[in-house]
């Protein structure tokens, strides 16, 4: 990777003001993604994967959420210090976003057509006629039958899979350079999930955009992404190429995650390896490595100091004191 990446997130720290005090949802998150690449962000609830997406998009709930340190560089432009107006031109035009629940991402009282043409109205000089034409052809591209009729319909008239296609069409209509998909298929059935993942892949090949795929499903990561970031309690546990991490995971959390999921070709009715304990609350994080209270290998050092991200090889970086120690 000689040229500079499309998006570079460096030491990002995001905090939320809550009734119970300040919560640090992201604590020094770094990763990057090149043009046309697919990066997976994976982790369990509260690990910060969605907050990462919202931080990039400048959509953190205000005034509670704010970025307190670090930088987000997109096309060499620093997003996190950008004035709201400039951010608005990037959002929707250069970066598109797909949310988990299509029904909440769509406005129930506006037609599909109106919602699709909105970002064209904001970001392009196209006239009414051209906007409608662009919207119809986008609906056609995401595989919606009879797109001109659908333009006049409301979200409730569509099935879940069709709604998610509309949300994808909305995110892509301005041909963004980066698409952030936050659990785009979690609310959908498996056969529909396969359709949507394929659609995203096809459109990516066609339009050459980069995709950040946020999911808790390691199967989705394995099937769609080239590189991945494993997050735990607001920090990066391990990141690198998907092949490398699935092939030889080095962080005990990644290892635990990968071995604890039931596999179709596994031994039926055998006990699964488990990660003991529960995901810690952000209000009550262990000191040192945040995984230390669930880690079978933890030693005193893990409770005292935060492990730095260290490189094993070019495509695998791990935040653990012990990965290169014999177990």
């Amino acid at each position, binding site marked *: 990777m000689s040229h500079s990446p499309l998006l570079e997130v460096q030491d990002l720290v995001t905090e939320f003001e809550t009734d119970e005090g300040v919560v640090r949802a992201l604590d020094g998150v770094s990763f990057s993604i090149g043009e046309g690449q697919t990066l997976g962000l994976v982790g369990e609830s509260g690990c910060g994967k969605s907050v990462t997406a919202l931080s990039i998009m400048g959509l953190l709930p205000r005034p509670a959420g704010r970025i307190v340190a670090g930088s987000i560089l997109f096309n060499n432009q620093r997003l996190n210090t950008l004035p709201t107006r400039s951010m608005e031109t990037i959002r929707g035009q250069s970066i598109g976003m797909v949310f988990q629940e299509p029904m909440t991402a769509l406005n129930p009282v506006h037609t599909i057509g109106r919602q699709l043409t909105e970002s064209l109205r904001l970001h392009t000089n196209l006239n009414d006629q051209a906007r409608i034409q662009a919207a119809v052809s986008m609906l056609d591209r995401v595989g919606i039958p009879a797109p001109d009729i659908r333009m006049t319909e409301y979200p409730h008239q569509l099935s879940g899979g069709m709604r998610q296609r509309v949300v994808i069409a909305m995110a892509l209509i301005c041909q963004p350079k980066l698409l952030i998909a936050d659990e785009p298929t979690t609310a959908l059935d*498996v*056969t529909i999930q396969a*359709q949507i993942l394929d659609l995203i892949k096809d459109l990516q090949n066609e339009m050459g955009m980069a995709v950040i795929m946020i999911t808790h499903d*390691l199967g989705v990561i*394995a*099937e769609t992404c080239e590189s991945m970031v494993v997050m735990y309690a607001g920090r990066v546990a391990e990141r690198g190429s998907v092949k490398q991490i699935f092939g030889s995971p080095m962080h005990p959390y990644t290892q635990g995650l990968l071995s604890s999921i*039931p596999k179709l070709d596994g031994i*039926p009715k055998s006990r699964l390896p488990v*990660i003991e304990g529960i*995901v810690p609350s952000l209000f009550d994080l262990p000191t040192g490595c945040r995984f230390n209270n669930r880690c079978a290998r933890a030693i005193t050092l893990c409770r005292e100091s935060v492990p730095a991200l260290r490189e094993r090889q070019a495509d695998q970086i791990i935040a653990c004191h012990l990965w290169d120690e014999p177990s």
Partner: protein
Amino acid sequence: MGRTIVKPLLEISHLSMHFPVKSGLLRRSTLVNRAVNDVDLSIYPGETLGLVGESGCGKTTLGRCIARLYQPTQGQIHYQGVDLASLNQRALLPYRRDIQMIFQDPMESLNSRHTVKEILEEPLIIHGMASAQARDTEVKRLLDLVGLPARSATRFPFEFSGGQRQRIGIARAIALKPKLIVCDEPVSALDVSIQSQILNLLLDLQSEFGLAYLFIAHDLAVVKHISDRIAIMYLGQVVETASSETIYQNPRHPYTQSLISASPVPDPTTTRQRVILKGDVPSPIDPPKGCHFHPRCPACFAPCADHPPPLEPIHGSEDHLARCHMVNAPGAAEDTAIIAQALGEAN
């Protein structure tokens, strides 16, 4: 496993659950939602029967009929020589202790104003454990069985994490020493690292008490892991049943084949051809004529659109049934082989 001699614990025949769909100004029922339509299934003692299908296929409704949370429209549920479907609430009471239920969302299914002790005591009181002291001991025993500390008894559901709440739900389900537990998506609301803890707990309890499970879920990998046999449902009907190994190794119904092919595999080195089904699941209010699956079926041929196929043994094997014209039709063997190859995995 010699099932020919073992008698089923529970035998469902021709079970249907139809919901009237009310519409219009006068709320007249004009249409019928055939959520479960003519289902035959058996569950054997100590086994896990997995029930898989997509949303709206009727798997939850079927589970609720078996737990008799619904009064089925038609059909029988034979249990210990009695037809549970025909019993009224009062007559059902003695059988309720034998068939219990675990729900998907433990926060919704536990009374938030009751302590864990009160939640676990309730079934004991209803089914006649009078002595408060005996109940105390029993609550402690149940908490211990599901891996919760005894001090949990005085706490409320909101004080627990999702996985711990599901443990409380499981403790309540086993309180009456049931023979069968209907588990409705018990792990789908949980984080990945917690899922395996709960699956292990269910496996442990099964081997300790010889429980049978009806395990309802949409995640094929989870169901295959925990089940002895699997039934696949589509639009209110069972379309294929077989041992979980057979369902995975030799699926015969095109819907089963596409479900397996659509499940994401957590291994980036597998290269396989996916067959992606076109279209959405149709509505059970107005299912397609003939085979319900035919509009989406990659193997559909002429008779599929007109004649509904029966659920029949594949080449005479009572252990493997499928509802498809293709599986036993003369000359269909090669066709299915071609489809299976197209659908199948490269590895």
